């Protein structure tokens, strides 16, 4: 049993590197990443798993870091947008977002890119309908959806050629 206010040791892999950090049971994953590890890419926005701005990948699957407790990632691999930015193999995806102007204010972009990576990992050549279906949980308030869909289509196309 872990007492309230007692710290749990969370040993996990983040963006390819092993880390260990102590957190209390109620600490959200997004707070551990932002405040504990200074990875500011995931944003706390709606705080209720609806908007997707806090999206990170846990063992490759997108979750809402605003609500998932930090202790849940013990022994797991977490990918944040910082990990995507540092990974040359991900340049096709991030370049596609830039080249297609799929970014306006940029607040939703880390979540969009991570969700898109997860989609392409399990479905490398999604149809437009499949992209919209998968991405519907990530909200962009600059109304940039069309460009985002086009960016993901281009990333898939280029991966096929490359």
């Amino acid at each position, binding site marked *: *049993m*872990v*007492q*309230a*206010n007692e710290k*749990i040791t969370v040993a996990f892999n983040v963006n390819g590197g092993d880390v260990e950090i102590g957190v*209390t*049971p*109620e600490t*959200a994953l997004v707070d551990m990443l932002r405040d504990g590890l200074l990875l500011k890419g995931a944003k706390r926005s709606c*705080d*209720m*798993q*609806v908007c*997707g701005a806090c*999206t990170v990948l*846990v063992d490759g*699957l*997108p*979750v*809402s870091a605003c*609500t*998932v*407790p930090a*202790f849940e990632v013990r022994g797991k691999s977490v990918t944040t947008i910082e990990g995507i930015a540092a990974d040359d193999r991900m340049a096709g995806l991030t370049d596609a977002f830039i080249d297609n102007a799929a970014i306006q204010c940029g607040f939703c972009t880390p979540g969009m890119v991570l*969700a898109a990576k*997860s989609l392409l990992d399990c479905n490398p050549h999604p149809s437009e309908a499949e992209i919209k279906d*998968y991405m*519907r*949980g*990530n909200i962009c308030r600059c109304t940039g959806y069309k460009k985002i869909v086009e960016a993901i289509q281009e990333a898939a196309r280029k991966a096929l050629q490359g």
Partner: protein
Amino acid sequence: MRPFRLYEPTTIKETVARLSELGDDGKLYAGGTELLLAMKTGLLQYDGLVNVKTVPELEGVSFSNSGTLNIGARATHSTVEHSADVIAHAPLIASVEHRVANVRVRNVGTVVGNLCFAEPHSDPGALLLLYEAEVDIASPSGTRSASVEELVVGPYETSLAGDELVTRVRVPLLPNGMRGAYLKFGYHHRPTLGVGAAVSVTDGKFVDIRLTLGSAPPKPTRMRDAEAVLRGAAVDDPAVAIEAGRIAAEGCDAIDDLHGSAEYKRHLVQVFVQRALTEAVERGVK
């Protein structure tokens, strides 16, 4: 969020003993997709959470030879959606689970947790009611079973005692010849309405019928009066489905809330019962 103690039992026995000890100060924690939202806003406060995800016995989805899908307390919506057994034997469940919330919630939230939180605006309850699913329940004094109807008694309210744990939901497949459909509607991130219909047809007449309704009423509901007018009626008579829709709409306990007025929801029920029946019949023909 207010600090809480975290318990991580490794057996069902240990889990229910802990629940018994904590009483009203403790709560089971599975995916947390509903519970933690309520705790963040302060609507619910617990001194201790008991994590079921550290109990290996509660894992996974399996299919038994008797034609039953077993969904363990730890199985997430994603696990169910992508389960080869679910896709092969109950594709309707896979397709409805695929449309629950968004991909992040499905990766974390559990089907059993969803049932036990009893959020009215939700699909799994009405869907599992369509399959006449039952839950297995463990407590310090033994085990028992209950139907989904017996389990969910009102908004955010179940018939579970404080020391009881739903270990799994057992989903019997639809009987031979019966085809199901589930339609949902809404503009919010939670559904405004969900209608399930399962029908079998012989010689152009409805034989077995199940109709269920979720999200519009305070709890998932079987619409038995509407089922009764369909039984024995001609499938190709459009007046029959309209009459079933009317009875379902009149009989349903639709509530006024942010999703709309009760009157508006009754109108939706009328329309969607007809559509769900049509879809279930067409699937049978195919």
